[in-house]
């Protein structure tokens, strides 16, 4: 059911041969998500607690009248927790889930850059072992000698977060 966005992606790639990725930092590592999935970037605000959910679900925020859940990517990936402060940023992304768009916020350490990345530059990721399941990683790209981990955000949120986020206490 993801045809609309998929079609857009294809078009874009055909036009320029590249896609744009927004990158951000998590514990010193740089991650990228396709910019077409990103709705907006917001400063940190304390979300309202959402009881009976997984620990990486920080709560919900009010996005112009819409109630949007906020996920902590560090917690989700099992990285060391830091105190979320002024520097932390919420990246609001829109993913498609069973034919319906869902808007979700992800807390990251800081936003970095927007890069044009050609498909040919994306290398398959090696076995990443324990921390991040490699299903969530689309591939790795190297820009200015830095490695960027490109995330498959649809898969990460649908399969890796929403599926087991709720009712953890039941």
């Amino acid at each position, binding site marked *: 059911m993801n*045809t609309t966005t998929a079609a857009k992606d294809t078009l874009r790639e055909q036009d320029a041969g590249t896609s744009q990725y927004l990158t951000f930092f998590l514990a010193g590592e740089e991650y990228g998500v396709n910019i077409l999935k990103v709705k907006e970037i917001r400063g940190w605000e304390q979300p*309202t607690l959402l009881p*009976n959910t997984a620990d990486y679900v920080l709560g919900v925020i009010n996005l112009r009248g819409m109630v949007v859940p906020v996920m902590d990517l560090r917690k989700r990936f099992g990285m060391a927790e830091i105190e979320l402060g002024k520097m932390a940023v919420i990246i609001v992304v829109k993913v498609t889930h069973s034919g319906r768009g869902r808007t979700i916020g992800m807390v990251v350490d800081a936003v970095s850059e927007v890069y044009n990345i050609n498909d040919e530059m994306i290398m398959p990721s090696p076995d990443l072992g324990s921390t991040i399941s490699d299903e969530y990683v689309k591939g790795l790209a190297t820009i200015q000698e830095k490695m960027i981990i490109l995330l498959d955000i649809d898969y990460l949120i649908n399969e890796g977060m929403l599926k087991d986020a709720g009712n953890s206490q039941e």
Partner: protein
Amino acid sequence: MAVNLDMSQFHEIFFEESREGLEAMESGLLNLNVGVPDPEVVNIVFRAAHSIKGAAGTFGFTNISRFTHVLESILDEVRSRKRGVTQELVDVLLQSVDGLRYMLDCAKAGAQVDENRIAAIQESLENLPVEQQPKPAGWQIHFIPRPHLLQTGNDPYRLFRELKALGNLFITPDFSRLPGIDKKEFDPENCYLGWDLLLQSDAGIEQIREIFAWVEGDCDLDINLSGERRQLVERRRRRDDESADALLESGRGQEQASIRVNIDKIDTLINLMGELVISQSILNHAVTDHDHDHDQTGRLKEIVELLEKNTWELQEQAMRIRMQSIDFTFQRLPRLVRDLCRSLGKQADLEISGGTTEVDKTVLEKINDPLVHLIRNAVDHGIETPGERKAGGKAESGLVEISAAQEGGNIIIKIKDDGAGLDTGKILAKAREKGLITGAEELSMSQIHNLIFLPGFSTVSKVSDVSGRGVGMDVVKRNINDLGGSIELVSEQGKGSAFTIKLPLTLAIMDGQLIRVGKEILIVPVLAIVESTQVKKQLLSAVAGKTEVYRFRDEYIPLMRLDNVYGLSSDLKDITDGLLIIVETGQQRMGLLADEILSQQQVVIKSLEANFQQVSGLAGATVLGDGTVAMIIDVPGLIRHCKGITAAHTAGNTALLPGIHT
């Protein structure tokens, strides 16, 4: 790929429109009288089938268009009066509607159609014996020409000759207006005669009117169905005037009257409206704070007040977009009653009123199942067999009434039958047998009646095909409670039962009581609150060392500490500092322990499912005046949850089961 994408968008519209077409066909068929079909209704059914056939062909659903073609040709024969309407015909046509619906569902889901099932229906369609349209009793025509008719060059005799060409014509002249020939006012060039004509013909009213077209302005003309045919039509008219009107309305005027809009767009609009209201209240606040005796401030205040008024109105109107008439649900019920009666060998009429009452779309979707269940029950358990009814001095055919009306912020749906009523003896015996009551209690009539709402209760000893499939009245009640509504029952043995359902008009807005637990603000629906009280330690006790119960007016109710339920940290040092909010759904009560009770306000309910998923214990969230999000407590859910715990801890001790005490 782009082409595929576009087609699939149109498919959605096709499915939606076909579904509406099928509904029009179904209600048309139910309105079709055996023997004397109303041509207008036949036309509606035919048109619906015709457009489904056309559209199915266009979109490449060949199996649907092929099947509809067979259906259409039969309808065409009915339309052109080559085929009479029999009970068998109506039955098979209704089956075909079901078949079409099934094929559409399959096409929508991309599933394989069970060809045998369709072939069977198609076969019975093709093998329908052609019953000639019975000769109708005919038309009664009352024709009184104005005196000057003959001077316009018209001759009644010619009219009669043309009428005669349509069938048998019986002419009775009416001399009543003839002045005496000897009178002075008699003018030989005037026509003083009138005629009563009886035309035995299956011609339509249009054909007759056409004959009289030239003289229409020069006479009093009254054309009526005669004899039995008229009685039948009139009876039908009287009975479902409203639904017939609605049917014609939906057949004709829908395109101009409404447009199809994606529900997401409406919800976005409503969301933004909610935001606007919040911005408005912030602005109000800012202006009020700004209380200098400036001329301009006064003017500013006026503008802000005006804006406020407009904003509220705008929000109200935006909310109304989601409202739909309850007829969408009611429409399906006549078919249900008809089918039930046929399979149970009973006779019952369904009377529908108030179908135009508007309800929120979500309420509408969720009320369907409970209503179907109640109607099933009314026909299955309520209405007696014709023989029993006759013996009881009632008309052989039973009556089930369903009505809807708006009362304030609620919609009231009443379902009434004139059947046997509830058998209190049977209910009591059953409740004892199932261990729902101990047998020692003295129960009032209404308490006995309310036992049927308890889980695991069903008086029918043998599970019939119709009701009693394990889904009982408790589920009906729970569904209605979940919608924030209530259900009441009045029944008199031998006279019938009446259920009254009260539902909120919309699920999008409710009155909320803000409470505080630690740092968090939670919202309790005001409708669910019985009262709030200070905690008294002597009334508090524990069961099995775990569950806390509180004595509230001679009744033990479970107490829930909200900080535990929701994993919050309360800042109560002692339980007596807290406040207990007694809530109830239906007949079950529970106390919620909060740190503080704040203000009451109207809140717009936002679903957590939209971007996340359902969270147990929460009915949703809302955005408060300061822009922060607050959670809405799911009272029915909590009560169910806590009942589970209480039942587990007090197994065997029925005295603690809520529901018996109230």
